[in-house]
């Protein structure tokens, strides 16, 4: 029996070490907490897809580097006004491919593949979930030779570089555009990227081997990558400790603890993420059956109340003590990228000021420590200053933030009642009666993120024509905010190709957010990766993912 048990343990040990990946030789093991369903970025239903796909299928005409700038990848250069790639009327874009490009299966990569990519992503039946912006504006594709693609747009599209930064599809190795969701390619892509899929053991690991036809001579330096699927946080850190893995996606530990635990083996790196946490205020009356901005919110309709709430939050303690410095400060929607606006907080942490604002606004302290209306602007006398604070469940930092803010607000006599719903409800549609869509909420806390081309999201969130109603159910102006100056700035930002003009327009919107206060920005999440000290050539990129730039990785 003893011998049997011993054998069992040895076998178990072997199995476990095999699961751990390790890879050995010139292979890097990366830890994934969950398994992606596809390696096709355009079908990505979760952030995990990109973390893997960046090493294989996401090599396109351009990419966004660690400085937030576009650089050419498969294209010879970026089309601009100066080099004639972009026409003077902004309606024609000419891309030139590098010479001698090949797909990973050895077939030539030509302008016809660029045309095919446009055909797929402009097809409304492709099933694509992301990355299709602007493709419906392309009215004509010409391919005069194998290297040149000439695109004609129906209107100027400032995101013309961004839309070709997430990969190309090979016409010969995929399928019908309308059938994209079912392509075999999605799980075993023929690609121009540095690595290709070798084996995919579902629930265990996905192994990549180097693409022999990669366009940069001598790269990638590594022989392969192994993405080990390890859901348990403790097991993940143990793999880093044992040297079985070199890259760790989203470690659960705070940086200080992690670096101490893995001293001499690995460190945690924080890079500014794109997820910007804010409290949204509903400026219109909830539960009145009217989703428009017609009737002001009885409590939040008064700017002074919103300013008081902003003044009651101890931002410093929230960022440093509650979230242990895992986030950075953020005051407005434009917190990173080329459109970043450094605007100071108009109402920082100041309890005295908050109390004074509420007194002025006609809210007097009640017997139970919660204020009641007495001569308030919109609320009837006797109304309690009690507001619902909605968030989504199963995300720890969000719940900690909510609980912290509830205490902050209690200190100025404002009652905030946390009401968390599942992700699907908070971010549900108008038809699903999602509270933010139909306007039945007081305060809502969640994080939003922009890509390098922020126009679509911003126009949707802040333009007064985008208030969601029965007739306009997809609108994203959940605050029900109407500000003609903001509308004009957004229209300007959407029609100009001058980066400085666009940035100034966005900063005007950012300043209006601080002035009118339809929302209060709390902090910016940072992405965190654990990286072994033995790895070199690693680049941290806000716009990329864990596996971005893997062609440059080497062991020391």
């Amino acid at each position, binding site marked *: 029996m003893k011998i049997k048990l011993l054998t069992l343990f040895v076998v178990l040990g072997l199995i476990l070490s095999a699961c751990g990946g390790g890879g050995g030789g010139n292979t890097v093991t990366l830890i994934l907490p969950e398994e992606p369903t596809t390696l096709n970025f355009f079908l990505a239903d979760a952030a995990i897809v990109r973390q893997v796909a960046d090493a294989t299928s996401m090599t396109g005409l351009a990419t966004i580097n660690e400085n937030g700038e576009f650089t050419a990848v498969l294209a010879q250069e970026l089309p601009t006004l100066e080099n004639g790639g972009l026409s003077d009327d902004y309606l024609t874009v000419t891309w030139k491919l590098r010479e001698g490009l090949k797909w990973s299966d050895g077939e030539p990569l030509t302008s016809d593949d660029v045309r095919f990519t446009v055909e797929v992503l402009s097809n409304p039946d492709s099933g694509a979930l992301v990355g299709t912006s602007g493709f419906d504006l392309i009215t004509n594709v010409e391919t005069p030779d194998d290297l040149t693609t000439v695109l004609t747009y129906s209107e100027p599209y400032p995101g013309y570089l961004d839309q070709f930064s997430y990969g190309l599809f090979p016409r010969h190795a995929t399928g019908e555009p309308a059938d994209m969701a079912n392509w075999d390619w999605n799980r075993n892509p023929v690609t121009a990227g540095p690595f290709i899929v070798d084996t995919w053991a579902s629930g265990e690991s996905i192994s990549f081997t180097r693409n022999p036809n990669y366009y940069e001579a001598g790269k990638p330096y590594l022989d392969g990558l192994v993405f080990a699927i390890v859901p348990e946080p403790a097991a993940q850190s143990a793999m880093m400790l044992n040297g079985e893995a070199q890259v760790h996606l989203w470690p659960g530990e705070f940086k200080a603890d992690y670096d101490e635990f893995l001293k001499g083996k690995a460190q945690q790196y924080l890079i500014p993420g794109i997820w910007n946490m804010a409290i949204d205020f509903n400026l219109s009356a909830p539960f009145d059956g009217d989703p428009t901005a017609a009737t002001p919110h009885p409590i939040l309709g008064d700017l002074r109340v919103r300013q008081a709430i902003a003044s009651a939050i101890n931002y410093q*303690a929230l960022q440093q003590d509650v979230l242990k410095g895992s986030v950075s400060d953020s005051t407005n929607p434009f917190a990173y990228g080329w459109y970043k606006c450094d605007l100071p907080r108009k109402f920082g942490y100041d309890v005295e000021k908050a109390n004074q604002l509420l007194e002025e606004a006609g809210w007097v302290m009640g017997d139970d420590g919660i204020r009641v209306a007495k001569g308030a602007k919109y609320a009837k006398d006797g109304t309690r200053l009690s507001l619902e604070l909605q968030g989504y469940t199963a995300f720890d930092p969000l719940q900690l933030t909510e*609980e912290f803010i509830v205490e902050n607000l209690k200190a100025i006599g404002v009652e905030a009642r946390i*009401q968390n719903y599942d992700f699907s409800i908070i971010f549900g549609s108008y038809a699903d009666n999602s509270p933010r869509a139909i306007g039945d909420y007081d305060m809502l806390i969640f994080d939003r993120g922009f890509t390098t081309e922020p126009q679509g999201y911003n126009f949707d969130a802040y333009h007064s024509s985008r208030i969601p109603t029965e007739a306009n159910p997809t609108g994203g102006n959940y605050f029900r905010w109407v500000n003609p100056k903001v509308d004009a700035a957004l229209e300007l930002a959407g029609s100009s190709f001058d980066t400085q003009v666009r940035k100034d327009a966005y900063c005007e919107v950012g300043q209006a957010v601080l002035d009118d206060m339809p929302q209060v920005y709390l902090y910016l999440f940072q992405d965190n990766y654990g990286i072994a000290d033995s790895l070199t050539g690693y680049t941290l990129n806000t716009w990329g993912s864990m596996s971005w730039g893997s062609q440059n990785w080497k062991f020391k």
Partner: protein
Amino acid sequence: MSELAAAPPHEQNMAWLITRRFFKHKLAGIAIAVLAVLVLAAVFANLSPYSPTDQEPTNSFEKPNSTHWFGTDELGRDVFSRILYGGRVSLTVGLFSTFLSIALGVLVGALSGYFGGWVDSVLMRITDAFLTFPTIFVLILLGAFLREQQAPWLKNSIVVVIVIIAALSWMWPARLVRGLFLVLREKEFVTASRALGGSHTRLIIQHILPNCIGPILVSGTLQMASAIITESGLSYLGFGVQPPTPTWGSILATAQNQVFRAPWIGFFPGFMIFITVMAINYIGDGLRDAFDPYVIHTSD
């Protein structure tokens, strides 16, 4: 019913006998005391020097010490106070939802098993129908319904939580009791009692039910622990108790992420649920001994 109200002398003896037999079971006595302490601690939670919601973020993850007996959590809140206050919700939900579910289950099971025939068919098909509802689906539907209700007293009410948990768990005791009744109603003592002119009510309550107490209590103690955990699950679906109000289930759920950094945060609520369930179990054990008609007639 009048014959029940005016209890004949031998039945007074029986009540006394049951009480005495119950306390003869030493663990049951201790369990009653433990449960009493837990209930009192929850009732007088406000005597704790710390508030369950006051935060001191610079003082988070403190190990158990003389000021914070159970340490502090990620927001620097006193875990001891949170456990005491958490007991208010958890014990209320655990005890009342179990009681309600057992009461409903016994009623349905007893009628079904005793009368048989079409009563049995109808009641058991209803029970089966409830059993086939996928719990999560029902909860999501309920969540959607309650979300439309503006009044927080309805969507965050403990009473609603208790009713929901009971409504989703009464079927197991119902089936159990039905099975027991099917067997017991054929026994000689029941036939004898019926021959003497005993009413249905009398037969069910006085003769058959006492013989079922044991299994019913065992199933009840099992349900109690799951009710405490289910309660914390409901808040994830947007109804029930929301943060920052502590409950044992919610403290346990959030502590999972801190298991390496601060294992004590998860230990204490887990331990409280454990001893509550143990106490109920032993009380059930004692009650079974006390009510068991076979034991009564062969002892003393």
